C-alpha cells in the first residue's frame, strides 16, 4: 500500500522570525554606525544617541575641557603631516577629538608657542582629549552592539 508523502512544512515561528531578524539586524547596523560616527565627531554624542545621558554629559564636559585648556596653554594643533612617524602619531592623537580638532584647525587656531611655559602640558592635554575620544568610539560601539550596558 502506497502512502501519499506528507509535505514537510517549516514551523510557523521560523517563517515569521526570518524577516524580523533581518529588519532587526538592519536597524542594529544603522544604530551602531550612527553611534560610532557621532562619537567620533563630537565627544559624548554617541552615548547621547544611545540614551546614556550621564556618560554623555561627563564625556563631553571632560574632553572639551581638556581640549580647551590645552589650547589655552598654547598647545599646537598638529595637522596632517605624514613625513615621519611622530608627526603621524601627533596628528592621529589630535584628530581623535573630531570636530573639536578640525574646526579650530581650519580656523587657524592652535598655532602653538613652543616658548610658552606650559606648551608641552598643553600638547599633552590635547593628545589626551583625542585619545580618550577614540576610546569613547569603541565604548559606543560596544554599547550599541549590546556587549555592554
Amino acid at each position, binding site marked *: 500500500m502506497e502512502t501519499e508523502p506528507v509535505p514537510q512544512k517549516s514551523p510557523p515561528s521560523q517563517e515569521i522570525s526570518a524577516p524580523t531578524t533581518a529588519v532587526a539586524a538592519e536597524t542594529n547596523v544603522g544604530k551602531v554606525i550612527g553611534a560610532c560616527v557621532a562619537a567620533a565627531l563630537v565627544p559624548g554624542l554617541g552615548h547621547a544617541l544611545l540614551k546614556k545621558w550621564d556618560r554623555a554629559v561627563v564625556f563631553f564636559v571632560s574632553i572639551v575641557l581638556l581640549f580647551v585648556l590645552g589650547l589655552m596653554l598654547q598647545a599646537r594643533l598638529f595637522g596632517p603631516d605624514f613625513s615621519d612617524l611622530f608627526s603621524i602619531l601627533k596628528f592621529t592623537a589630535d584628530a581623535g577629538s573630531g570636530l573639536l580638532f578640525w574646526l579650530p584647525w581650519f580656523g587657524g587656531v592652535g598655532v602653538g608657542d613652543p616658548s610658552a611655559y606650559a606648551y608641552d*602640558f598643553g600638547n599633552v592635554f590635547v593628545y589626551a582629549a583625542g585619545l580618550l575620544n577614540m576610546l569613547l568610539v569603541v565604548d559606543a560601539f560596544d554599547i550599541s552592539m549590546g556587549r555592554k550596558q
Partner: protein
Amino acid sequence: MNNHFNLLLIFSALVSLVFTFIAKYGTRERVKYFLYLFGSFVLLSILVGWLMYPFPF
C-alpha cells in the same frame, strides 16, 4: 595656569573621570574607582618625577 602641579591635578581629575564612567556603573563604585585612579595618577607622577630627577634628559 602657570603651575605644573595644578595642571597635573586638573589633568588627573578629568582623565580619571572619563575612565571611571567608561569602566564603572554604580555611584558608590564610581566614587571609589575615581579616587583610586586620581590618587594613582598624582602619586605615581610625583614618584616618577623624583625617580627621573637625577637623569639629565
